[in-house]
């Protein structure tokens, strides 16, 4: 999954940072050029490589560099060997900046018009992230910070930037995200072949609930365990295209859409018991 689209403002700032880095690398690289490139801790790395305005702190031993007699303040450079895929890596600074990116306005009152094609496409994408219907989705993007705060930065309220969607959590706050959601491999082992030989076939996602008659509200075809917030998938800015409710302004979903007692793990006898029927005898 690719990263978020960058806005012009961010690009401009990145250019400045980049130029400063180039100068820094040139100067400091001379000093450390003979080093054999032993890596440093990721935590040291990340602090040095995040510009101060993004929340990182300047390293205490960052020293001004003199170029043609003019002192230029610099951020301490990291040598190339240290610029490996950092553990704090691709998502390390998301928390600092992303929540400030303006979100598209969501018009609650314009009914979406989901198409079967969109629905199929969304079902396909969802299926690549779940071993079976109901499994907690794996984390499809690089992530190294596994504290709940890092996940919550984007997935707390959900985000949409361009085509990229960070879905809102469909369940209440649970503090240990990677307990259930499996991350991609640790960056040092990202290239290890992790394929397995398995015959396992998971339960496919249902494509629709049952309707008693055309136009009747469909039943909920899946369990709502860990999926208590219907609008996370079925409405709102982070909904799956094709899954949207045609009436997102209505928020009491189970008023009309009946869940399944069996899937909800509610008491559900094999047969629904009724009182014995009336005995009607001939007159």
């Amino acid at each position: 999954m690719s990263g978020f689209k960058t806005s012009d403002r961010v690009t401009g700032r990145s250019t400045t940072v980049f130029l400063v880095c180039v100068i820094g690398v040139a100067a400091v690289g001379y000093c450390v050029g003979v080093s054999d490139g032993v890596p440093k801790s990721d935590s040291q790395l990340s602090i040095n490589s995040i510009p101060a305005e993004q929340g990182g702190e300047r390293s205490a031993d960052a020293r001004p560099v003199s170029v043609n007699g003019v002192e230029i303040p610099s951020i301490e450079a990291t040598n190339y060997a240290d610029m490996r895929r950092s553990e704090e890596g691709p998502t390390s600074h998301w928390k600092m900046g992303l929540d400030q990116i303006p979100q598209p306005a969501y018009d609650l009152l314009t009914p979406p018009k989901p198409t079967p094609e969109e629905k199929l496409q969304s079902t396909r994408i969802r299926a690549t992230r779940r071993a079976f219907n109901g499994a907690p989705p794996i984390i499809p993007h690089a992530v190294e910070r596994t504290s709940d705060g890092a996940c919550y930065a984007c997935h707390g309220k959900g985000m949409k930037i361009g085509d990229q969607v960070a879905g809102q959590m469909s369940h209440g706050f649970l503090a240990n995200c990677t307990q259930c959601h499996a991350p991609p491999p640790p960056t040092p082992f990202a290239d290890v072949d992790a394929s397995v030989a398995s015959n396992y076939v998971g339960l496919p996602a249902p494509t629709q609930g049952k309707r008693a008659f055309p136009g009747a509200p469909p039943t909920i075809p899946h369990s709502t365990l860990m999926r208590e917030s219907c609008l996370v998938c079925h409405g709102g800015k982070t909904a799956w295209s094709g899954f949207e409710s045609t009436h997102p302004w209505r928020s009491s979903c189970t008023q009309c859409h009946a869940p399944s007692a069996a899937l909800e793990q509610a008491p559900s006898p094999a047969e629904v018991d009724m009182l014995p029927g009336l005995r009607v005898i001939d007159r």
Partner: protein
Amino acid sequence: MDADRRSFLKGAAMAAASAAVAGQQETFALPIVDQPVDADGGVLWNKAPCRFCGTGCHVQVGVQDGRVVAVAGDKNADVNKGLLCVKGYHVGSILYGKDRLTKPLLKKEDDYVEIEWDEAIDIVAKRIQDAPEKFAFYGSGQWTIPEGFAAQKFMKGGLGNNHIDPNARLCMASAVTGFLATYGVDEPAGCYADLDECDVLITWGNNPAEMHPVLFSRVIDRRSRGEQVRLIDIGTRRTRTTDAADDFLLMQPHGDVAIALGIMHLLIEDDSYDKDFVEANCAFRSPQSEGPTLQGEAISFDEYKTRIAKYTPEHVEELSGVPADKIRMLAGLFGDRNLRITSTWCMGMNQHTMGTAVNSLVHGVHFLSGHFGKPGDSPTSLTGQPSACGTVREVGTLAHALPGGRLVAKEDHRTQCEELWNVPAGRINPVPGYHTVKMFEQFTKSSADGGDIDTLFVQVTNPGQTLPNLNKLFNDKKNLKDKFLIVAEVYPTATTVLADLILPAAMWVEKNGMFGNSERRTQQWFKMVDPPGEARDDCWMTIAIAHRLMELGHEGMKNKDGEFIFAVQDEDGNEVPVWEWEHYYDVNVDKAIFEEYRHFTTMKHKNLAPYDEYVKARGLRWPVVEQEDGAWRETKFRFAAFDDPFVAEGRDIEFYHSTSGDGRGQIWFHDYQPPPEVPDDEFPLWLCTGRVLEHWHTGTMTRRVASLNRAMPTGYVEVHPDDAAELNVRQGEVVIVESRRGVCELPVWIDGRGKPPRGTVFVPFFDETKLINNVTLDAHDPFSKQPDYKKCAARIRRRSMEVSQG
């Protein structure tokens, strides 16, 4: 078996035949179906405990067309309340690895040939018949309760041979000896409800965020609800548990012993110990200076005070590396009677050459401070396997034990078992058999040198990967032609590599089963799908071997009345030939065995309910006691009058199996001893081994699950950045980790998931292609015989250095 179960299974079996569609699945991505799937009617859901750790979560298993297709957390289960961990959610796919073993395989030179079950059973029975005393049975905390009981009865009640021991010896034997030394009887007093009530949770060398994630969430999710829980992590490296901790106390290996002693010293010095609790409920004890035993000898309180006086915070700081003010902080918490303090521990305190001692000392800290016997105030050991408690500790599948907390060395215990089993008096051998380390020593030593175990049957475990010091305890088998290794397994493993005979086993919901989890909860499930090919239940294997031995004329396979020791009758009282696989599920063999076992459990007040009660429940915590109205009541808090029915009238707390015979628990004094091997100039690093969230133990199951393997595809060595700099090794570089005992090649992970301090490296043991147990030490606790996998001296070499040095 009732009609519903029968038709369910029949339907499942028929569906399985038509379910070969699964073949071409390349990834774990779901196939997109064209027609809607009727999620309401097409999937049959049933309860089962998770196959993995000792937490004992209940899952709902979704079966469609004879195959497990989905898993959900069981909302009605008290243990996990609908939540699972990433392993638990994917437990269904462990059945479907492409390389499942489906035929008995006999070694022929370097290859294997497929043989029929009949021949396989014959081979095993004849090996045993030839030399019954040279046969050993190595089992598991993953044995179901009936499997363990069958193996136990077969060995001790049938062969009169005590060489049966489980892998749990490597896992929680020190917790057992700690409980025995302290309470006089095994297993925790509290339960998981303590986690809902505690104000302070102390994790002693324990990383529940990864090893018992559902229990960990149960605590830290309380914070999300606005509750205050102070988490104190004591460990030798930073882990994910540390991320959530309020305090992290980095200790030197064996520092836990000193910390516990230091807290007790301060409780006495500050006069903040709970005088009423100690007066009413405690006695003091210490190991004898000559020939120490598990029971030790009584000492006076004054003697205890004198001995503990030297463990001042400053001295403890020297021994443990934990600053003196942190020891004072801990003592301050324990000295506060208004707090509820729960301690948890797992392998850190158990895989320890002072394992029994440190377990006893932590219990002692809770006793001395009175933090015991109230919800949330409890010292609790967590187990790593789903039935380490149920099968190993309660059924007693250990070389020295008999069912229900009995010992082979005690004549009255043997007599009771012989009577319950209806076998002739004197059938049970009074001499304890070989514990795990000794068993493998004797098996991998040539007969000429006194290696007197020549046939070893391994069920439901993988010693070729989990034994310490594999070069000493396992790998030598390769060159011993007269030794015969039989392995019942579901997949090829590091153990089957040296197997002479491989028996394909059924697993998890492919068979009926019962487990017992960490909180004394006994759980039951039914078979839901058929095992693949000719894979069969481990319990059936034991019974079939026993029956063949009887046919070969072994008298031990008959009871006093000349009947087969595993005779099972149907409802009409007719014997069912359960040793024939086609008839094994004609009756519920699990139920028959469990009903026999149940009568062993009352002596130590670990009463179990009838089988059918467990069918209805999501597990019940023993003692389960019948009420006047015929209902069966479980017990959450043992030894506490408000909940435990066996506490004598008039007492708040009673340890009714007290070593001192007066209802008191024992507060132990043990002197600190240094670890058996410490880093030196030649081997300058501490090596610690352990586990990760995504993989379970040797990875036999989880490494065949796509999403888990994706998350953690390889074993590794965690290295501190400064050590990496000094060693000149790079992120991801494959290095050689070596000790005096062996080597293991591993990629480096600097600042990995866990963060060891300078001078310490950590290696998880799940990867069968990178066997860190070639490097670990086989030194073990003198009482529990549990080896110490958590600390030994090692060094790291670059592979390039090896090349340049030729």
